[in-house]
Protein backbone atom coordinates (compact mmCIF):
# COMPACT_ATOMS: atom_id res chain seq x y z
CA UNK A 1 0.00 0.00 0.00
CA UNK A 2 1.15 3.53 -0.84
CA UNK A 3 0.93 4.78 2.75
CA UNK A 4 2.88 1.82 3.99
CA UNK A 5 5.69 2.71 1.63
CA UNK A 6 5.86 6.30 2.87
CA UNK A 7 5.42 5.88 6.59
CA UNK A 8 6.46 3.53 9.24
CA UNK A 9 3.06 1.93 9.16
CA UNK A 10 2.22 1.00 12.73
CA UNK A 11 -0.77 -0.58 14.34
CA UNK A 12 -2.36 2.76 15.18
CA UNK A 13 -2.08 3.99 11.62
CA UNK A 14 -3.53 0.74 10.36
CA UNK A 15 -6.46 1.12 12.71
CA UNK A 16 -7.11 4.70 11.59
CA UNK A 17 -7.09 3.68 7.94
CA UNK A 18 -9.36 0.71 8.64
CA UNK A 19 -11.75 2.92 10.58
CA UNK A 20 -11.89 5.65 7.93
CA UNK A 21 -12.73 2.96 5.40
CA UNK A 22 -15.38 1.52 7.70
CA UNK A 23 -16.75 5.04 8.26
CA UNK A 24 -17.12 5.60 4.51
CA UNK A 25 -18.63 2.16 3.90
CA UNK A 26 -21.16 2.81 6.64
CA UNK A 27 -21.99 6.17 5.07
CA UNK A 28 -22.55 4.56 1.65
CA UNK A 29 -24.76 1.96 3.26
CA UNK A 30 -26.76 4.68 5.05
CA UNK A 31 -27.17 6.61 1.78
CA UNK A 32 -28.44 3.41 0.11
CA UNK A 33 -30.85 2.81 2.98
CA UNK A 34 -32.22 6.32 2.73
CA UNK A 35 -32.64 5.97 -1.02
CA UNK A 36 -34.53 2.68 -0.50
CA UNK A 37 -36.62 4.28 2.25
CA UNK A 38 -37.70 6.98 -0.18
CA UNK A 39 -38.06 4.82 -3.26
CA UNK A 40 -40.11 2.13 -1.53
CA UNK A 41 -41.71 4.65 0.82
CA UNK A 42 -40.59 2.40 3.67
CA UNK A 43 -40.31 4.69 6.67
CA UNK A 44 -39.03 1.82 8.85
CA UNK A 45 -35.69 2.10 7.09
CA UNK A 46 -35.26 5.59 8.53
CA UNK A 47 -34.53 3.96 11.90
CA UNK A 48 -31.61 2.12 10.30
CA UNK A 49 -30.24 5.40 8.93
CA UNK A 50 -30.35 6.84 12.45
CA UNK A 51 -28.57 3.72 13.79
CA UNK A 52 -25.89 4.15 11.14
CA UNK A 53 -25.35 7.76 12.24
CA UNK A 54 -24.78 6.57 15.81
CA UNK A 55 -22.33 3.90 14.67
CA UNK A 56 -20.62 6.54 12.52
CA UNK A 57 -20.23 8.76 15.58
CA UNK A 58 -18.45 6.05 17.50
CA UNK A 59 -16.15 5.25 14.56
CA UNK A 60 -15.27 8.95 14.24
CA UNK A 61 -14.40 9.10 17.96
CA UNK A 62 -12.16 6.06 17.55
CA UNK A 63 -10.43 7.60 14.51
CA UNK A 64 -9.73 10.85 16.34
CA UNK A 65 -8.67 9.08 19.54
CA UNK A 66 -6.15 7.00 17.61
CA UNK A 67 -4.81 10.05 15.80
CA UNK A 68 -4.43 11.92 19.10
CA UNK A 69 -2.75 8.84 20.54
CA UNK A 70 0.02 9.40 18.01
CA UNK A 71 -0.99 7.79 14.73
CA UNK A 72 0.66 9.40 11.68
CA UNK A 73 3.14 12.24 11.50
CA UNK A 74 1.97 15.43 13.26
CA UNK A 75 1.56 17.47 10.07
CA UNK A 76 -0.98 14.96 8.74
CA UNK A 77 -3.08 14.63 11.87
CA UNK A 78 -5.26 17.77 11.59
CA UNK A 79 -6.24 16.94 8.01
CA UNK A 80 -7.14 13.35 8.84
CA UNK A 81 -9.21 14.54 11.84
CA UNK A 82 -10.90 17.14 9.65
CA UNK A 83 -11.74 14.50 7.04
CA UNK A 84 -13.39 12.31 9.68
CA UNK A 85 -15.35 15.33 10.89
CA UNK A 86 -16.57 16.20 7.39
CA UNK A 87 -17.76 12.60 6.87
CA UNK A 88 -19.52 12.91 10.22
CA UNK A 89 -21.20 16.09 8.99
CA UNK A 90 -22.54 14.11 6.00
CA UNK A 91 -23.99 11.61 8.46
CA UNK A 92 -25.63 14.49 10.37
CA UNK A 93 -27.26 15.91 7.24
CA UNK A 94 -28.41 12.43 6.25
CA UNK A 95 -29.93 11.74 9.65
CA UNK A 96 -31.64 15.11 9.82
CA UNK A 97 -33.07 14.65 6.32
CA UNK A 98 -34.21 11.10 7.09
CA UNK A 99 -35.99 12.27 10.25
CA UNK A 100 -37.64 15.12 8.35
CA UNK A 101 -38.78 12.55 5.78
CA UNK A 102 -40.92 10.91 8.45
CA UNK A 103 -42.95 14.11 8.82
CA UNK A 104 -42.84 15.85 5.48
CA UNK A 105 -45.68 15.73 2.96
CA UNK A 106 -44.04 15.68 -0.45
CA UNK A 107 -46.01 16.44 -3.61
CA UNK A 108 -45.56 13.58 -6.11
CA UNK A 109 -43.40 15.42 -8.67
CA UNK A 110 -41.10 16.81 -5.96
CA UNK A 111 -40.89 13.36 -4.40
CA UNK A 112 -39.67 11.79 -7.65
CA UNK A 113 -36.90 14.38 -7.91
CA UNK A 114 -35.91 13.86 -4.28
CA UNK A 115 -35.71 10.08 -4.79
CA UNK A 116 -33.34 10.82 -7.64
CA UNK A 117 -31.22 13.14 -5.48
CA UNK A 118 -31.05 10.39 -2.83
CA UNK A 119 -29.90 7.95 -5.54
CA UNK A 120 -27.22 10.35 -6.79
CA UNK A 121 -26.05 10.93 -3.20
CA UNK A 122 -25.55 7.18 -2.82
CA UNK A 123 -23.62 6.98 -6.11
CA UNK A 124 -21.50 9.97 -5.08
CA UNK A 125 -20.64 8.26 -1.80
CA UNK A 126 -19.40 5.22 -3.73
CA UNK A 127 -17.00 7.49 -5.62
CA UNK A 128 -15.79 8.98 -2.33
CA UNK A 129 -14.98 5.48 -1.10
CA UNK A 130 -13.29 4.63 -4.41
CA UNK A 131 -11.23 7.85 -4.06
CA UNK A 132 -10.11 6.92 -0.58
CA UNK A 133 -9.04 3.46 -1.72
CA UNK A 134 -7.28 4.98 -4.72
CA UNK A 135 -5.39 7.33 -2.40
CA UNK A 136 -4.24 4.40 -0.30
CA UNK A 137 -2.88 2.81 -3.46
CA UNK A 138 -1.06 6.01 -4.40
CA UNK A 139 -3.22 6.58 -7.48
CA UNK A 140 -3.98 9.97 -8.98
CA UNK A 141 -7.31 11.32 -7.68
CA UNK A 142 -7.97 13.71 -10.56
CA UNK A 143 -10.65 11.60 -12.29
CA UNK A 144 -12.33 10.72 -9.02
CA UNK A 145 -12.44 14.35 -7.89
CA UNK A 146 -13.99 15.33 -11.20
CA UNK A 147 -16.64 12.61 -10.85
CA UNK A 148 -17.53 13.92 -7.39
CA UNK A 149 -17.85 17.47 -8.75
CA UNK A 150 -20.07 16.24 -11.60
CA UNK A 151 -22.47 14.57 -9.19
CA UNK A 152 -22.52 17.67 -7.00
CA UNK A 153 -23.24 19.96 -9.93
CA UNK A 154 -26.06 17.70 -11.06
CA UNK A 155 -27.63 17.72 -7.63
CA UNK A 156 -27.18 21.50 -7.44
CA UNK A 157 -29.06 21.89 -10.74
CA UNK A 158 -31.83 19.66 -9.45
CA UNK A 159 -32.04 21.67 -6.22
CA UNK A 160 -32.49 24.84 -8.25
CA UNK A 161 -35.44 23.43 -10.17
CA UNK A 162 -36.99 21.76 -7.09
CA UNK A 163 -36.90 25.08 -5.24
CA UNK A 164 -38.48 26.83 -8.21
CA UNK A 165 -41.35 24.31 -8.04
CA UNK A 166 -41.57 24.51 -4.27
CA UNK A 167 -42.44 28.19 -4.47
CA UNK A 168 -45.62 27.28 -6.36
CA UNK A 169 -46.86 24.87 -3.72
CA UNK A 170 -49.47 26.24 -1.35
CA UNK A 171 -48.77 25.33 2.28
CA UNK A 172 -51.34 25.15 5.04
CA UNK A 173 -49.17 26.53 7.82
CA UNK A 174 -45.71 27.85 8.60
CA UNK A 175 -44.37 24.54 10.00
CA UNK A 176 -45.47 22.53 6.98
CA UNK A 177 -43.65 24.95 4.71
CA UNK A 178 -40.59 25.01 6.91
CA UNK A 179 -40.44 21.20 7.03
CA UNK A 180 -40.65 21.01 3.25
CA UNK A 181 -37.92 23.65 2.83
CA UNK A 182 -35.70 21.97 5.45
CA UNK A 183 -36.14 18.58 3.80
CA UNK A 184 -35.12 19.83 0.35
CA UNK A 185 -32.27 21.87 1.77
CA UNK A 186 -31.07 18.82 3.79
CA UNK A 187 -31.20 16.28 0.98
CA UNK A 188 -29.23 18.59 -1.31
CA UNK A 189 -26.69 19.56 1.39
CA UNK A 190 -25.53 15.95 1.69
CA UNK A 191 -23.73 16.23 -1.64
CA UNK A 192 -22.19 19.60 -0.67
CA UNK A 193 -20.61 18.01 2.38
CA UNK A 194 -19.50 14.97 0.36
CA UNK A 195 -17.83 17.30 -2.12
CA UNK A 196 -15.99 18.95 0.80
CA UNK A 197 -14.87 15.50 1.90
CA UNK A 198 -13.62 14.75 -1.62
CA UNK A 199 -11.71 18.04 -1.71
CA UNK A 200 -10.17 17.30 1.64
CA UNK A 201 -9.11 13.87 0.47
CA UNK A 202 -7.15 15.58 -2.27
CA UNK A 203 -5.46 17.83 0.29
CA UNK A 204 -4.47 14.77 2.32
CA UNK A 205 -3.19 13.11 -0.85
CA UNK A 206 -1.02 16.11 -1.68
CA UNK A 207 0.28 16.29 1.90
CA UNK A 208 1.20 12.63 1.81
CA UNK A 209 3.13 12.96 -1.38
CA UNK A 210 4.97 16.16 -0.43
Amino acid at each position, binding site marked *: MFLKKIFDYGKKEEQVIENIKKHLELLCNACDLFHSAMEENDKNLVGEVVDSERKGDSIRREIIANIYAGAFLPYLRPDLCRFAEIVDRVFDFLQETALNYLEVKLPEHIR*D*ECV*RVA*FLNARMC*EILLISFEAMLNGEDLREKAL*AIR*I*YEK*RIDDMEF*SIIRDLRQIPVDDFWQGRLLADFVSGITSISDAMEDAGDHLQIINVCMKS
Partner: protein
Amino acid sequence: MKIDEFMTTRIASIDADLSAYDAIEKMVDRRIRSLLVKFKGTDSDHGVITARDIVFKVLAKGIDPTDIKVSSIAAKPIVCVNRDVTLAEASALMEKSHIARVFVCEGEKIVGVVSLLDIMTASLIMRARGEHVS
Protein backbone atom coordinates in the same frame (compact mmCIF):
# COMPACT_ATOMS: atom_id res chain seq x y z
CA MET B 1 -23.98 2.17 -16.90
CA LYS B 2 -27.65 2.47 -17.76
CA ILE B 3 -29.01 5.58 -19.36
CA ASP B 4 -31.46 6.35 -16.56
CA GLU B 5 -28.66 7.25 -14.15
CA PHE B 6 -27.70 10.19 -16.28
CA MET B 7 -30.89 11.30 -17.86
CA THR B 8 -32.44 14.64 -17.01
CA THR B 9 -35.86 14.00 -15.54
CA ARG B 10 -37.10 17.58 -15.56
CA ILE B 11 -38.08 18.14 -19.13
CA ALA B 12 -39.04 21.65 -20.06
CA SER B 13 -41.82 21.76 -22.61
CA ILE B 14 -43.68 24.23 -24.77
CA ASP B 15 -47.01 24.17 -26.60
CA ALA B 16 -46.70 23.79 -30.35
CA ASP B 17 -48.99 26.78 -30.90
CA LEU B 18 -46.66 29.23 -29.16
CA SER B 19 -44.11 31.32 -31.04
CA ALA B 20 -40.41 30.71 -31.55
CA TYR B 21 -39.89 33.82 -29.41
CA ASP B 22 -41.61 32.06 -26.48
CA ALA B 23 -39.28 29.12 -27.00
CA ILE B 24 -36.21 31.39 -27.01
CA GLU B 25 -37.41 33.06 -23.83
CA LYS B 26 -37.88 29.74 -22.08
CA MET B 27 -34.54 28.31 -23.21
CA VAL B 28 -32.59 31.42 -22.20
CA ASP B 29 -34.42 31.69 -18.90
CA ARG B 30 -33.70 28.08 -18.00
CA ARG B 31 -30.32 27.91 -19.69
CA ILE B 32 -31.26 24.83 -21.73
CA ARG B 33 -30.81 23.96 -25.38
CA SER B 34 -34.02 22.15 -26.22
CA LEU B 35 -37.70 21.95 -25.38
CA LEU B 36 -40.20 19.16 -25.72
CA VAL B 37 -42.98 20.35 -28.00
CA LYS B 38 -46.51 19.36 -27.04
CA PHE B 39 -49.05 19.23 -29.83
CA LYS B 40 -52.72 19.55 -29.11
CA GLY B 41 -54.65 16.33 -29.26
CA THR B 42 -53.13 13.18 -27.86
CA ASP B 43 -50.73 13.15 -24.93
CA SER B 44 -48.26 11.08 -26.91
CA ASP B 45 -47.92 13.54 -29.78
CA HIS B 46 -44.57 15.19 -29.19
CA GLY B 47 -41.80 16.95 -31.04
CA VAL B 48 -38.60 18.66 -30.06
CA ILE B 49 -37.25 22.13 -30.73
CA THR B 50 -33.58 22.95 -30.22
CA ALA B 51 -31.48 26.10 -30.10
CA ARG B 52 -30.03 24.94 -33.42
CA ASP B 53 -33.52 24.91 -35.01
CA ILE B 54 -34.19 28.43 -33.79
CA VAL B 55 -30.86 29.84 -34.91
CA PHE B 56 -30.71 28.14 -38.32
CA LYS B 57 -34.39 28.09 -39.28
CA VAL B 58 -35.45 31.46 -37.86
CA LEU B 59 -32.75 33.90 -36.77
CA ALA B 60 -30.21 33.19 -39.52
CA LYS B 61 -32.95 33.67 -42.12
CA GLY B 62 -33.96 37.03 -40.69
CA ILE B 63 -37.41 35.80 -39.67
CA ASP B 64 -39.03 37.55 -36.73
CA PRO B 65 -39.35 34.82 -34.04
CA THR B 66 -42.69 36.23 -32.93
CA ASP B 67 -44.08 35.52 -36.41
CA ILE B 68 -43.33 31.84 -36.51
CA LYS B 69 -44.93 29.04 -34.55
CA VAL B 70 -42.94 26.40 -32.71
CA SER B 71 -44.91 23.72 -34.59
CA SER B 72 -43.48 24.80 -37.92
CA ILE B 73 -39.83 24.36 -36.94
CA ALA B 74 -40.01 21.52 -34.41
CA ALA B 75 -38.66 18.09 -35.33
CA LYS B 76 -41.19 15.28 -35.12
CA PRO B 77 -41.44 12.50 -34.03
CA ILE B 78 -39.01 12.36 -31.13
CA VAL B 79 -36.54 9.50 -30.80
CA CYS B 80 -37.29 7.36 -27.75
CA VAL B 81 -35.29 4.69 -25.98
CA ASN B 82 -36.00 2.35 -23.11
CA ARG B 83 -34.61 3.33 -19.70
CA ASP B 84 -32.39 0.25 -19.46
CA VAL B 85 -30.51 1.05 -22.64
CA THR B 86 -26.77 1.49 -22.08
CA LEU B 87 -24.93 4.73 -22.78
CA ALA B 88 -23.05 3.07 -25.62
CA GLU B 89 -26.31 2.02 -27.26
CA ALA B 90 -27.79 5.49 -26.82
CA SER B 91 -24.74 7.21 -28.30
CA ALA B 92 -24.72 4.81 -31.25
CA LEU B 93 -28.36 5.67 -31.90
CA MET B 94 -27.60 9.41 -31.71
CA GLU B 95 -24.77 9.02 -34.18
CA LYS B 96 -26.89 6.97 -36.56
CA SER B 97 -29.84 9.36 -36.40
CA HIS B 98 -27.68 12.54 -36.39
CA ILE B 99 -29.36 13.85 -33.26
CA ALA B 100 -28.01 15.38 -30.06
CA ARG B 101 -30.52 13.96 -27.59
CA VAL B 102 -32.79 10.98 -27.11
CA PHE B 103 -35.84 10.81 -24.92
CA VAL B 104 -36.25 8.04 -22.39
CA CYS B 105 -39.75 6.60 -22.51
CA GLU B 106 -41.79 4.15 -20.50
CA GLY B 107 -44.61 3.17 -22.80
CA GLU B 108 -46.07 6.46 -23.97
CA LYS B 109 -44.73 8.40 -20.99
CA ILE B 110 -41.54 10.43 -21.38
CA VAL B 111 -39.49 10.02 -18.22
CA GLY B 112 -36.24 11.72 -19.19
CA VAL B 113 -33.89 13.04 -21.81
CA VAL B 114 -30.24 12.27 -22.44
CA SER B 115 -28.05 14.68 -24.39
CA LEU B 116 -24.54 14.41 -25.82
CA LEU B 117 -23.23 16.33 -22.82
CA ASP B 118 -24.89 13.81 -20.49
CA ILE B 119 -23.11 11.00 -22.35
CA MET B 120 -19.75 12.75 -22.01
CA THR B 121 -20.40 13.37 -18.32
CA ALA B 122 -21.38 9.74 -17.76
CA SER B 123 -18.20 8.57 -19.50
CA LEU B 124 -16.13 10.56 -16.98
CA ILE B 125 -18.02 8.94 -14.11
CA MET B 126 -17.43 5.51 -15.62
CA ARG B 127 -13.69 6.23 -15.87
CA ALA B 128 -13.62 7.27 -12.22
CA ARG B 129 -15.36 4.03 -11.27
CA GLY B 130 -12.92 2.03 -13.34
CA GLU B 131 -15.71 0.81 -15.60
CA HIS B 132 -15.19 0.12 -19.28
CA VAL B 133 -15.98 3.12 -21.48
CA SER B 134 -16.63 2.13 -25.07
